[in-house]
């Protein structure tokens, strides 16, 4: 099996690479590339993302044909794709970080700043928080409800259709921290930084 981590200059992806390689051992090939043909021929794709919504969308658009290839992979061919952090946020129609920016539009909704209740809550939301698993998702197989995952973000994805939500977390409000729509998976938290329980999420995705 071939799993491709999309390398599109979205910031620091070494931890994502390390964690997938740790889980894959020698059984699964982990490729790190923006090569369109390699992405097309992959069995699964991971879309990481760090920095701002706008910087990640810009970086995707800077690689000619990449968005089309991802659309073909995830929407037309319905192959499994996992978005992490801003990778998940980009599923939305639109994001409001820095400036209004169009997203991939795979899951209707918007990405807006977490309400910090006039400074009562610190932003970014950094650290370990419990997830409330709200629906059976293949990536949460064998993972207990209320497990701790590592978060670092100031913006949240607000999907229109609440049925896509697979987990939430409690901060200044109830924040969507995982979505699943058909073959498309996303986590706002960082499984690659969530110790053994995070590696389990990665393993689950590889086994989807």
């Amino acid at each position: 099996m071939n799993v491709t981590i999309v390398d599109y200059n979205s910031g620091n992806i070494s931890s994502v690479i390390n964690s997938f390689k740790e889980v894959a051992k020698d059984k699964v090939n982990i490729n790190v590339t923006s090569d369109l043909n390699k992405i097309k021929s992959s069995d699964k794709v991971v879309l990481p993302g760090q920095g701002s919504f706008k910087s990640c969308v810009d970086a995707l658009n800077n690689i000619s044909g990449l968005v089309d290839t991802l659309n073909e992979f995830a929407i037309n061919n319905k192959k499994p794709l996992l978005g992490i952090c801003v990778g998940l946020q980009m599923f939305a129609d639109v994001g409001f970080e820095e400036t209004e920016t169009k997203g991939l539009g795979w899951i209707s909704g918007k990405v807006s700043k977490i309400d910090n209740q006039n400074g009562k809550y610190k932003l970014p939301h950094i650290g370990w928080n419990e997830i409330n698993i709200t629906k059976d998702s293949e990536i949460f197989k064998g993972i207990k409800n209320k497990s701790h995952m590592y978060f670092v973000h100031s913006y949240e994805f607000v999907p229109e259709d609440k049925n896509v939500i697979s987990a939430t977390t409690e901060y200044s409000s109830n924040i969507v921290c995982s979505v699943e729509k058909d073959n498309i998976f996303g986590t706002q938290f960082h499984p690659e930084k969530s110790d053994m329980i995070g590696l389990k999420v990665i393993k689950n995705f590889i086994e989807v």
Partner: protein
Amino acid sequence: MLKNRIIPCLDVKNGRVVKGINFVDLQDAGDPVEQAKIYSDGGADEICFLDITASNENRDTIYEVVEKTSKKCFVPLTVGGGVRSIDDINKLLNCGADKVSINTAAVQNSKVVEDSSRKFGSQCIVVAIDAKRNEGGWEIFTHGGRNPTGINALEFAYKMEKCGAGELLVTSMDKDGTQSGYDIELMKKISSSVNIPVIASGGVGTLDHLVDGIKSGASAVLAASIFHYGTYSVNEAKQYLASKDIPVRI
């Protein structure tokens, strides 16, 4: 609910772990990769490496340490010490660091913080503030606590937030190495004047000091000696905090 973080810190010199008393008199004690793995297996919420003498010496050893550690530890790894430029930050992130802490360079040129947080995201930019009490409050020092700057710590903290820092790592130089507890007043003042998380550092000798650190408003507590010399394990620290009704990940 978001949990308070416990961050064991390893001071690294020439690829080996050391822990200083008031920033001098270093004692050698161990391999950082092995030590980091013990911490992450023990429930550390993050790991921090401080390359303490990096400002003066060859620092290539730290890259190797970071690279090895990031392949074994799957919790966030912060690396600081001698970080001068966007290039340094890029190199550390590429080796597997998740966050980079900037001290001297942030004071000398705040544009490093602005540019790096824009380029890599605020989430990986930590500004380390070394502060010492003076008549009017606290003054920040650079170069591992060697050089006074005349800059007020509170004003600097506020400025760094505006520049895009994702977190502040605040070390009391008066307390560091004394094991007499954090400078609680400093932590309170800084955490209440910024909206980004503050990591309290410098002075932990007992588990009650960690409790006091969290109660001061810090989002995370950093400690070196108590973990490094085995006085307490990370797990013992967490159990203790939990027994004091402080939410931690267990």
